[in-house]
């Protein structure tokens, strides 16, 4: 009987499905989504590359002057991420000292090319 009752209730209520591209799925704050690098904040410490379990972060030479807490320093390297190899574990974000590598509150796309880079 409970089956029948639930069936009838459902018949006259709105479907539960979210029709995705038309309606957006709500994404909670703190969602570990798409990975992004804030280039002007990175001090080139390589920590992210060391903790990444998927080993998808490589440090490439890039000599730039950046400003950290009012001081100007010259960084030697910056990270690039192989986008589709990232498993979105968030460890890089957690270990980065200057919030230069972050997981955005945004759904990560999928793809087939493992070599796509995020710079």
């Amino acid at each position, binding site marked *: 009987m409970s*089956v*029948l009752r639930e*069936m009838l209730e*459902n*018949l006259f*209520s709105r*479907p*539960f*499905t979210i*029709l995705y591209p038309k309606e957006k799925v709500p994404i909670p704050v703190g969602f570990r989504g798409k990975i992004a690098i804030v280039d002007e904040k990175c001090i080139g410490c390589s920590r992210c590359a060391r903790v990444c379990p998927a080993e998808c972060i490589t440090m490439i030479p890039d000599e730039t002057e950046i400003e950290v807490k009012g001081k100007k320093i010259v960084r030697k390297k910056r990270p690039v991420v192989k986008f589709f190899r990232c498993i979105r574990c968030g460890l890089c974000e957690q270990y980065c000292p200057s919030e230069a590598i972050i997981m955005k509150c945004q759904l990560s796309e999928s793809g087939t090319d493992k070599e796509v880079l995020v710079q």
Partner: protein
Amino acid sequence: MLMDPLLLAVYILIFPGFLFLLAYAFFLQYLDRKIAARMQQRVGPPLLQPFADFIKMLGKEVIDPAGVDRMAFDAAPVVALAAAMTAFLYIPVVGESPFAFQGDLVLVLYLLTLPTIALFLLGWLSRNVFSSVGGVRAVTMLFIYEVPFFLALLMPALMAGSWSISEIAAWQGKHTWFALFQPIGFVVGLIGLQAKLERQPFDIPEAETEIVAGPWTELTGRRLALMHLTMHVALVAGSGLIAALFLGGPLLPWTISPPWLSWIAGFAMFLGKTLAILLILASIKVAMGRIRIDQLNDIGWKYLASATILQVAIVLLMGSRGVGI
């Protein structure tokens, strides 16, 4: 009832014959899926989805399983479809069917059995373990539900004293619906129809989690499309049959003039009644899981068969008391 040849051709080909039949079959299929979806709180398909599926499948590559008899494999779905469509011609839609004759009930029942036989054949021809198991299950099931189903559907004939569907429908116009006279038969008929269409809880031959898709496994492209269409058409024919036999069909108890108005009213009755039957069938589908073939065997013979025999006894008793006949 004789008509002039042109009208007859229109009847067969356009309305309420094949063209209407196909359109209605797709529509019923859509409704069936939509109702099921909404009951499961899903969105369900858009209106043209069943039709789009059909067209898409027609365009798909046809794959012959190794060592299969291609001729027979191609022919079986066509025969099944032809049988189901022919059966519909004898179902009264807007009034009495122009093809009605004494005994068309038996012909329709026979024609509606053909799709199942075709499925069995397809399963057998596929040379695939799942298909042949499914095919065997399909016929086993046929033997179980067919007896009570036939008995239940023949009871109205007995009571109305005619073996023509249209006349049985007309008889109900003068008396009352057989659903009220013979509630057990009506229920058994609905259950039998559900089994005939292989819908839950009787989707044993195509049990997805056990035998892939049973006889359907090796069907591809137009064969699959035709077989699906057969099932859609059988749904229309079956529900039209039940509507005519138990719910009075499209015939009105009183006469309306002009005739075209009574035709429209009859057509509306037909639509309303088949939709109601579809709603019941869809609810059964949604509310149940699949039973095992041996359990169906138990249920079929123990309950369905004995219920029908009880119904037969009641009808005979009523007949001897002079009710009906």
